[in-house]
């Protein structure tokens, strides 16, 4: 569960947190585009230092630790598997291949050989790093940008008012949903439903199934109540509303925007040089 901390806003006072959300969004997008444009290990690795810098400036290590552990486990599974699969494209092993399984009959190989080529290892490493770097980029944006800022950002980008507010409410009610589930669980436990007995499947069944309908009912009831609360406060009557957070461009933002644009420029040059997706 610690992994989720990488995708949740954490209030903190750092340069990264104070940046204008528009500048941060541009920075994230430029990084992701840069990562997306070329699948070369050297190019992907170039994105490492800026990312580390961002993480250091935003003091994000603590929030990212849980997710990094998950990525590591993912890597331990994905890297060997992908290397093996990509190697299939190479018909025969070359001098850079590692052969680790040969089935022979009286000295002659049969059924071919299981091998991994150097290119396959490199390619899966590239794909893996690209994925992780993209996730880290998304994390740096989400951890450092509050819901209010994201809403202000979307307003500035001329997203429809209704959409932005609704999205904000959805996010706001996520913890409420978890609380509600916990409450129903407790109400069921004090009346004898025990999710901790039985085999794995039975436990899962008992933990999830009795929760679904009550949760749905309670969510519907809550949303009706919430809608009424919004209505009596005339929420959607005017097409605009006062923003809680007014994004203002500062010097740091200008610097970030210039860097982002530079990154985009470099990506574009790379794209012209040798376009590979």
């Amino acid at each position: 569960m610690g992994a989720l901390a990488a995708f949740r806003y954490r209030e903190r006072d750092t340069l990264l947190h104070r940046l204008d959300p528009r500048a941060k969004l541009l920075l994230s997008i430029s990084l992701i585009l840069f990562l997306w444009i070329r699948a070369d290990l050297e190019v992907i690795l170039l994105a490492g230092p800026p990312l580390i810098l961002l993480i250091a400036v935003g003091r994000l290590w603590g929030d990212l630790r849980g997710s990094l552990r998950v990525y590591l486990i993912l890597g331990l599974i994905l890297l060997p598997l992908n290397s093996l699969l990509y190697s299939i494209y190479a018909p025969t092993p070359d001098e850079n291949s590692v052969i680790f399984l040969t089935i022979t009959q009286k000295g002659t190989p049969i059924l071919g050989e299981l091998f991994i080529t150097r290119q396959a290892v490199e390619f899966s490493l590239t794909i893996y790093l690209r994925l992780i770097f993209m996730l880290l980029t998304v994390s740096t944006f989400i951890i450092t940008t509050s819901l209010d800022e994201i809403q202000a950002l979307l307003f500035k980008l001329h997203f429809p008012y209704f959409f932005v507010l609704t999205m904000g409410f959805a996010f706001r009610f996520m913890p409420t949903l978890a609380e509600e589930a916990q409450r129903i669980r407790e109400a069921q436990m004090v009346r004898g439903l025990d999710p901790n007995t039985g085999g794995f499947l039975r436990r899962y069944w008992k933990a999830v199934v009795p929760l679904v309908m009550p949760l749905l009912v309670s969510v519907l009831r809550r949303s009706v109540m919430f809608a009424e609360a919004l209505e009596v406060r005339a929420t959607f009557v005017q097409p605009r509303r006062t923003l809680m957070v007014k994004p203002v461009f500062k010097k740091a933002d200008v610097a970030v925007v210039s860097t982002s644009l530079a990154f985009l420029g470099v990506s574009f040059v790379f794209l012209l040089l040798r376009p590979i997706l």
Partner: protein
Amino acid sequence: MQALRGIDLELYAGEMVGLLGENGSGKTTLARLIVGLIRPAKGRITVCGLDTTTASAYELARRVGLVFQNPDHQIFEKTVWNEVAFGPRNYQTPQKEVDRRIEAELRGFDLWVYRSRLPTSLSGGERKSVAFASTFVLEPSVLLLDEPTKGMDYGRKRGLEKKARDLCDAGRAVVFITHDVEFAFESTQRAIVLHQGKILFDGRTQEVLSDPLIEKAGLRLPPIARLAALLQDSLLPQPIGSVEELCNHLEMLL
């Protein structure tokens, strides 16, 4: 953070207890500990010989029931009948027996006419009653009722008291968790006063709730006790248990 400290408490069969204390004094936390929803950081709690840290919810719920402070946190089924049936169904009680017990509880709490209604469409006091019925139907040996009188009209309060008395006579223990001092004064025999997570008083209700010191724990003496305390110096023996008793004393004096 510590919500409760140094709690040493025994509940006996057939007891009707008032657990009192101001907001945040730890009453609800103590109840959640006793039913095993949370575990004590230190110490031990046993219910009918079962240790709450090791016993399963299944075993515990049959012996100790908790009615939540807020009925909306407790009610989750689509009809009043299903809500009350949830507990017995977990214990594979035969259908006939389940039906009989549910009907008895629903009638006992004046809910029979609402049996196929959506629980959330009922009034506050009625929802509270649904929560009572759905807990009482399991017939646990210990019943903890968190703020049971909140939002209940006089009739329902008296009904609840009568029901609780019957259960106590049948050898069960009932704990009223409340800051409704008047109700506790009139309905319980033993009173436990919590203050900042510690037990401040534990004794006979009439004595505890006549002691001006409970005002330290944020509780107000019930009016009769206040009146008795004011008259005591010159006129009365302590303590006074009810309006009738006070009247008798006054009549004798006049």
